[in-house]
Every structure is written in C-alpha cells, then in structure tokens.
C-alpha cells in the first residue's frame, strides 16, 4: 500500500518543488534589484512562446537527453558516471573524424556513420574507467572525473596541433562538408509546408534523442541485459548468486553509458556547429547528472527534465541577452531547481503524504 496516490508522487511533488524553486529565484532577482515578473516573462516568451524559442529549447534539451540517459544507464548498474562531459567531448572527436576524413555524398549516409563514430568514441572513453572499476576496484567517480580533464587536454592538443586548419586562429577543426549538414527541424517544417523555428539549431537529432529514450526504456525494463544491469545495481551478492558477472555488466553498462554521452555530439557538433570546437559540450555532461536524478532515472522523466533544463537554458539565455540581468542568474535558478526538485523533494513530499493519509483516514472512517 502506498502512502499517497502515484500521480501525487510523480506530478504534484515535483510541481510544487518547482514552484518553490522559482519563488526563491524571484527573491534572488529582487535582491539584485531586478523585476522577477519581467524576468519570468522574458524567459517564458523567449523559450516557450515562439517556435523560435522552442527551436533552441529543443536543441538544448536534446543534448541533455543524451547525457541524462548516459548517467541513468550507469546509475541503474550502481555506477555514478561523472564522465559524461569527457565522453561527449570525445564523441565529438569521433564525429569529426568520420565526417572530415571520409567522403559523404548525403547526410542520410553520413548520419548513421557519424552516430557510430560518436557512440564508439564515447564508449571507448568510458571503457578504461569501467574496466578499472570492474577489475581493479578503482572508484569510478574519481576515474571519470580524471578522464574529463584528460579529454579536455587531448582535445586541446588535437584541435590546436592536428585538426586546426593552417592559419586559423580558432582552436577548431575545419567545417564539415555541406553534404553532411543535418536537416534542421525548421527545414523539415518547411518541407511540410509551414514555417517553424527559422534559424534555430534544433535538428533531426531531436528525434534520435526520442528514439534513444525509447530504446533505453526497452533496454532497461524489457531486455535480459537491462534486468541484469538493474539486478547488479541493486545488489551485487544477489547478482553473483544469480550467475550474473559483475565485471561483464559493469563494462557493458559503462560502454552503453559512454556511447549515449558520445551520441550527444550528433546534436552539437554535427547538427549545430558543423565543426569541432573546443569545449563544445559546455557542461551538458554535468547537467546530465541533474537531469537523470531529477528524472528519477526513468527515460520519460529524463526527457521531461531535459526539457525543463532546455527551457532554463534558453529562457536564461534570453534573459542574459536582452536584459541587464547577469547570466549567472540562470546558474542560480538551475541550482535552485536541482536543489528543490532533486534533493529537497521530501520537504514537499512529507507534508503531502501526511495530507493524503489524513484524507484517507477521513474517507475510510
């Protein structure tokens, strides 16, 4: 028997938490001498009230879906993958190599190949920490943190010394050939005969992200591998009793996790920048942690949380762009959202439970 109805748990609680987070954010905005109402208006208008805003919101959300799923899959295996940042960055390298060094007649051919490149490189970057955890017991939290730094160093080196076209100031690779440019959602809309999200970076990867959510859901809850991943994540002795090899599952789960993080590069590197730039991931790997945890480690939750963060990113960007509010305010709002919906959720849930228990007693009496 549950203490409160499921809908209250999965919808009401986060909603109230969100409201609390925004209320405190409003106080912060007041404290720095700006108008919260104005700020909210700019954010909502800039992120949600135009196809243009959505074009950006969905673009950011796509990034977060991938990194969120990456954290989620590892989490189900009992592993805390902080390395999404590095894995996504190296995934970008994979995309770049595929697109720059192989000739592609059409994006539809380039895309699957680039996906393989992204996933493969991301997975490889997760492999060493995974293997060290499985065989040597080296704490995956440290090793993945270290691998983020190492990835940054490696990319820095490659971009400056290897991939950078001669004479270019930018530590970035050459642009990908036009044939590999992915269709934007705006182009697709035009193809269907209406104008939507002109000049926004949201692209076909968004659908791949949705597909990834579905596949991850199937993987975790519908396949034997998923069953074994979850079993190991919950209890290692039990998994061993059932004949599940922890080493194997740790390595596989991390490979999948790294591959998902790497796949993000399809969106930001292939879809948006259309070349590899330094720090292309821009912290999405870390946002992925929040997205996974807030999404309760369920793909649907991850999707919703990614949308929320996409909104915060885009709305916050608008705020920074068009008002005098410093862009750091967005970081504060993000922090408050993470805090209230992710860590202080019981502050809302406990009284709610009491409320529903009381209701039930009255109903039962």
């Amino acid at each position, binding site marked *: 028997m549950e203490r409160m109805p499921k809908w209250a748990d999965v919808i009401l609680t986060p909603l109230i938490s969100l409201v609390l987070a925004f209320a405190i954010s409003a106080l912060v905005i007041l404290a*720095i001498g700006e108008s919260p109402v104005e700020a909210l208006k700019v954010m909502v208008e800039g992120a949600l009230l135009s196809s243009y805003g959505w074009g950006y919101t969905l673009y950011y959300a796509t990034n977060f879906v991938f990194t969120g799923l990456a954290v989620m899959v590892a989490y189900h295996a009992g592993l805390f993958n902080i390395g999404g940042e590095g894995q996504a960055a190296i995934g970008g390298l994979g995309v770049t190599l595929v697109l720059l060094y192989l000739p592609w007649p059409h994006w539809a051919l380039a895309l699957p190949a680039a996906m393989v490149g992204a996933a493969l490189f991301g997975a490889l970057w997760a492999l060493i920490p995974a293997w060290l955890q499985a065989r040597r017991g080296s704490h995956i939290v440290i090793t993945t943190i270290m691998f983020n730094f190492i990835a940054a*160093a490696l990319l*820095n080196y490659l971009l400056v*010394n290897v991939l950078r076209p001669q004479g270019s100031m930018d530590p970035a690779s050459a642009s990908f050939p036009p044939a590999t440019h992915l269709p934007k959602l705006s182009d697709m809309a035009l193809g269907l005969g209406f104008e939507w999200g002109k000049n926004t970076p949201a692209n076909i990867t968004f659908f791949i992200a949705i597909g990834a959510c579905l596949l991850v859901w199937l993987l975790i809850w519908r396949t034997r591998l998923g069953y074994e991943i979850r079993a190991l994540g919950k209890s290692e002795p039990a998994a061993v009793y059932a004949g599940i090899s922890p080493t194997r599952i740790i390595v596989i789960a991390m490979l999948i996790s790294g591959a998902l993080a790497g796949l993000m590069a399809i969106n930001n590197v292939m879809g948006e920048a259309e070349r590899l730039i330094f720090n292309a991931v821009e912290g999405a790997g870390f946002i992925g942690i929040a997205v996974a945890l807030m999404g309760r480690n369920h793909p649907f939750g991850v999707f919703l949380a990614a949308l929320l963060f996409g909104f915060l990113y885009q709305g916050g960007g608008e705020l920074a762009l068009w008002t005098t509010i410093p862009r750091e305010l967005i970081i*504060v709002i993000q*922090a408050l959202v993470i805090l209230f919906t992710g860590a202080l959720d019981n502050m809302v849930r406990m009284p709610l439970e009491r409320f529903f228990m009381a209701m039930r007693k009255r109903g039962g009496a």
Partner: protein
Amino acid sequence: MDFATILQIVDSAVRLMTPLLLACLAGLYSERAGIFDIGLEGKMLMAAFTSASVAYATGTVWLGLLAGIGGALALSLVHGLASITFRGNQLISGVAINFLAAGLTVLLGQKIFGLGGRTPSLEGDARFHAITLPFAENLRGVPVIGPIYAEVISGHTVLVYLAFALVPLTWWVLYRTRFGLRLRAVGENPASVDTAGVSVTRMRYAAVAICGVLCGIAGAYLATGISAGFVKDMTAGRGYIALAALIFAKWRPWPALFATFLFGLMEAVSNRFPDLDLGFVTIPSMFMNALPYILTVIILAGFVGRAIPPRAGGEPYVKER
C-alpha cells in the same frame, strides 16, 4: 635536477596542496559521518568570495576568514537540511550547491563591486602574508636541513600551518575522542548510534558543520592566502580533486595528507616543466597539464585498489519508511 630545484618544487607543492588538504579533511569529516559531499567545490568557492569581500570591506583578513567560514557553513547547512533532515539525495544536493555557489558569487560580486564577479585586489592586512619561522635565515647555511627548513617549512601563511596541524588533530579527534567514535559509528551504522542513545541527526549535523568550517578555511586560503582577491570560478576544480584525494586516502587523515601532497607535487612538477623534454620526444604542455590526472588514474589502478567507503555513506538514515 638539483637540490634547490627539488626544494622549490616541494615548496610550491606545499602551497598548492593546502586548499586540497583542507577540503579533503572537510570531506573526511562529512563522509565519515555518512554524508557524501561533492559540494566541496561550491563551498570553497562561496568561502573564497565571502572571505575576500569581507576582508576587502573591513581591511582585516581575520574577519575575512570568519566570513569565509560563515559562507561555507551556510551552504553546509543547506546540504545538511537536504541530506539529513529531508533525507534527500546527497549527490544531487552537492551538485546543486556547486551550481549555486558558482552563480551566487558572481551575482553578488557584480551587485556589490561591479567588477564582473571579481573583488578588488586585497592589500596589506586584508590578506594573509607568509611568515618566516624563527631562525629560518640563520639556519639556511646548515647543510640539507637548513635549506629544507628555510625553503619548504618556513615562509607560508598561517593557514598552511593550520592545515598541516589539522591532520594530527583530525586523527586524534577521530580515534581518540568520544566525538570521533560516534562520528565514525554514525557513518558505518547509524542505527547502532541511535540505539545507543545518541542522536544521529545531531552527529551528522556536527560533521557537516565541521566540513563547512574547513571548506571555509580552504576557500579563504584561496582568496586571501595564496592569492589576493576573488575571481569567479577560482576554485578551478580543486573541490573535485580533493574528493579524489579523499577516496584515494580511503577516508583516513594521514593518507589524506599524502594524497593531497601527491596532487600538489604533480601540479608543481608540471608547472616547473611545462614542456618536458625526454630527449627523444617532447611532451606538449597540454599533457603536462593533464599529468596529475593521468598519474592519479595510474596510481589508483596500480597501487591503491578497492576503496571501501563508510558503509552507511550516501544513504539517509531512515527508521520508518
């Protein structure tokens, strides 16, 4: 490499390891009590900001130190509230605190000083200065010991000595006092502490508070000890490195000293030899900069083995579900 160079590198390592050591010990108290803390970074950052601001405003670095402790303590309280009182997810809370500090410091700094999140540079009594230990100069001539004393041991700010003194102190508190016994117990099996008639909540809050104080000192050291003012994001990942050192040290004080020294040393070495010329190949600066991280992984994999965290770590203490 001559003796003088080695001394200079070790001297630099001592300065660089100090914030790591303080943060590492901070994490040690918290995690030994069963509260995981990836928010060390954020707390240090907040402390760096509050300490620099108050030191600037008052011109007194000691008030700055107090303010730094206060700033970190405030975030500790948030973490305590989330992970102890409301039994929230400690990892999420830590992540949120890191974001919160990164945003708030710049927001407040910009509001107060208008320098884009920087504080003005600190001068005179508004910062900690290096102290020369007695006889440092007189003894310099003594072979071996003299230079070591004068170069490496003498000539740091008071916070460096404090950090080093905290290592034996922490050891003593942990293993020789009632408080330490209960602290360790509450991180291993909170129910045992509860049924022994001691409040788990109070113990954990105490641990989290100590963690805040130490992070506060670490942050104050960054802004008023080793440099002279706050710059946004100036912790530059040191909180994560401290966390790595903590796991490396398997949550014990003396190994924590060793682990943070190793990190400091590796950074000092890569500072000193930006392009290491090995004769047949020159290692580019990017890789020398990444050296501490690469070596950490190698050492971890090769020599440290399985690190078992405090058994009740990361889990809120729940009696009635």
